[in-house]
C-alpha cells in the first residue's frame, strides 16, 4: 500500500536532437498533490506525456502503481489507463459530442453499464466538476474557457480514477475562476483521496493547494519541497520565479 503511485527514475529524453531530460527522478506518494514547475522548454509537459504513456523516453523507467508503463503489455496498459484521468491543457473535448456524451465516453468504452446509466453518472461527474445541469446538453464550442476546463475535468473523473494528471489547469482562466478551480481540485483530492500531479506556471496554485513542488531545470530535478523550501535554493530561475510575487506581498 505504501509504494509510490508515480515513480520516475533516471529518465533521459531527446527530442529532435535536443536533450530535454538528463536523468530525471521523482516519486509521488498516494494522496499527495504535487506540482511540477520549470521554465519554458524544460520538458514539463513532455515528462507528463511520458508518464501517461504517450511519448517514450530514451532511457530510464516510469512506474505507475508499481507497474512499468513502457514495459506493460497492451492489456496491462489499458487496465492502468482506467486508474488515472488526464486533463489536457485546452480541455481536448471531443467537438462532435455534447458535454454529457464527452464525459460518458470513457464509461461507455470501459464499462458494460447501459447508456442511460452512463449518462446519469456523467451528469454526476459534471455536477462534481462544478458545472450547472444546463451545460450537459451543450456542445464544447458553446462553452467558455473555464467551463470547458471543468467539463474536461469531469471527463477525467469519469472512471473514478485514483490518480489525476492536470496539464496547466488554470492557464487561460481569470484569477477568480482559477482559484475556484484550485479549490475544486483540492476538495476532490481531499474527499476522494485522489493523488494529483499537475504541471503549472501559476504561483497562486502552488501557494493555495499543493503539498509539494518539484522544480525541473536543465534536464534534472532541481529541488523539491514547499514554496518556502524551494525559495532557499540558490538558482537564478527559481529566485526570479518566486521573487516576482513575494516582493509585492512582503
Amino acid at each position, binding site marked *: 500500500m505504501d509504494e509510490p503511485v508515480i515513480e520516475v527514475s533516471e529518465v533521459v529524453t531527446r527530442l529532435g536532437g535536443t536533450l530535454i531530460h538528463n536523468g530525471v527522478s521523482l516519486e509521488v506518494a498516494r494522496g499527495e498533490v504535487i506540482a511540477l514547475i520549470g521554465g519554458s522548454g524544460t520538458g514539463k509537459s513532455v515528462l507528463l506525456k511520458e508518464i501517461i504513456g504517450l511519448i517514450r523516453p530514451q532511457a530510464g523507467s516510469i512506474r505507475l502503481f508499481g507497474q512499468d508503463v513502457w514495459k506493460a503489455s497492451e492489456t496491462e496498459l489499458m487496465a492502468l489507463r482506467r486508474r488515472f484521468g488526464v486533463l489536457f491543457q485546452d480541455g481536448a473535448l471531443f467537438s462532435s459530442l455534447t458535454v454529457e456524451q464527452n464525459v460518458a465516453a470513457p464509461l461507455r468504452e470501459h464499462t458494460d453499464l447501459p447508456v442511460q446509466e452512463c449518462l446519469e453518472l456523467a*451528469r*454526476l461527474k*459534471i455536477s*462534481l466538476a462544478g458545472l450547472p445541469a444546463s451545460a450537459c*446538453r451543450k456542445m464544447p464550442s458553446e462553452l467558455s474557457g473555464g467551463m470547458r476546463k471543468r467539463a474536461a475535468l469531469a471527463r477525467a473523473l469519469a472512471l*473514478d480514477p485514483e490518480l489525476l494528471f492536470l496539464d496547466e489547469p488554470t492557464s487561460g482562466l481569470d484569477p477568480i475562476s482559477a482559484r475556484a478551480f484550485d479549490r475544486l481540485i483540492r476538495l*476532490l483530492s481531499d474527499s*476522494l483521496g485522489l493523488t494529483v500531479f499537475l504541471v503549472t506556471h501559476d504561483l497562486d496554485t502552488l501557494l493555495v493547494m499543493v503539498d509539494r513542488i518539484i522544480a525541473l531545470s536543465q534536464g534534472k530535478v532541481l529541488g523539491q519541497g514547499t514554496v518556502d523550501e524551494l525559495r532557499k535554493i540558490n538558482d537564478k530561475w527559481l529566485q526570479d520565479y518566486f521573487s516576482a510575487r513575494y516582493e509585492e506581498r512582503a
Partner: protein
Amino acid sequence: MAETGLRIRQEDGRTVAHAEGPWVLARIGKLPALPAIAAGAEVVLDGSAIESLDPSGAHTLMKRLREAGADPGRLQVRGLADRLQQVWTLVAEHQPDSQRTPEPRRGLLRQLGLGTVMLGRHMQGFTNFVGRLAAEVYRLVRGPGGFRYREFVAQMEAVFVYAIPISLAMIFLMGVVFAYLMGVQAQKFGANIYVVDGVAAAVLRELSPVIVAILVAGRSGAAITAQLGTMKVNEEIDALSVLGLSPYAVLVLPRVLALVLALPLLVFLGDAAGLLGGMMVAKAQLGLEFSQYWDRLDSVLKMSTFLVGVGKAPVFAVFIGLIACRMGLSVARDARSVGLNTTSTVVQSIVAIIVLNAIFAIIFVELDI
C-alpha cells in the same frame, strides 16, 4: 474481496439497509435487485461493511435506496469510515437531476424547415462572400501591387505542378478505354478510321475538362477548405484581419486565380494524354498506324473542339475556388466542422461542375459550335 450487496432488515421498528463489499464503478453493473421499502419510510443506511466507495458507487447506492422507496431527505447514515463518509457527502451534495428535459422532436416537417432555413443562410453567405471578393478584385485592379505573388506561386505549385502526373494518367486511361470500346463497334462496320474522330471529340470536348475538374475539386478543393478551416480554428484568420490584411486578398484571391490558371493547363495536358491513349489502342487493336491516326486527327479535329474544352475549364475553376474558400472560411471553431465543410466542398464542386457542363452543352449546341 467480498461481494457487493445491499440487504434490508427491520431493527427496533426501523428499516436498516446494510451495504457491504466494494461499492465501486467496476461492480455496480451487476447488482441484485433490492426488495421494496414502504414508500417514504425513514431508512438508516449501515455502511460499516462497505470496503470501498467511489462517487459512482455512492451515487448508485443512493439511487437504489431512492428507487426502493426510501425518502432521500430522511436517510440516515451510520458506520461509514471517515474517508468514505466524505465521498458520500460530496456525492449527496451533487446529485444530478434525474428528470431530463425531453429530446427535441425531429419530425420530418421540422427537418424540412431546418433544411430550408439552412439553405437560405447558405445562399446568403455565398452571395456575401462573392460580393466581398468582387470588392477585393476591384481594389486589386486599381492597385495591382497588392497582389500576393508568393502565395500565388506556391498555390500554382500545389494545384498545378503536383496534379500533372495524376491528370495525365487519368485522361490517358480514359482515352484508352474510349478508343477500345469505340474500336469494338467500328470494326463491325469496317469504319476503323472513325475511331479517331470519336476519341478526339469525346476527350477534348467532354472527358478531359470534366474529369480533370472533378479531380481538382477532390484534390485541391478539399485541401483548400481543410487548410483555411484549420487556420480559422487556430484564429489565424482573425490574426490576419487584425494585422490589417484582408483574408480575401491574402488567401482567397491567390487560390482562386491559381485554380483559374491551372485548370485549363491541366485540361490541355489531359487532352494530349487522352489522344495518346487513343493512338496506342488504335494501333494495337485496329492496326491503325500512328501516321494514319495523326493525319486523320489533323483533318477532322477543329480548333473549336479544343477551345470549347479548354474554355470550360476556367469557369469550373472559379466555382471550385469560390466554393472551397467560402466553405473553409465558414468553418466553426471545432474539428467536426472542418470535416463537414471539406465534404461539402467536394460535393458542391462536383455538382456545380456537372450542372455547368450540362448548361455549356446546351449553349454550344444552340450556337452550333
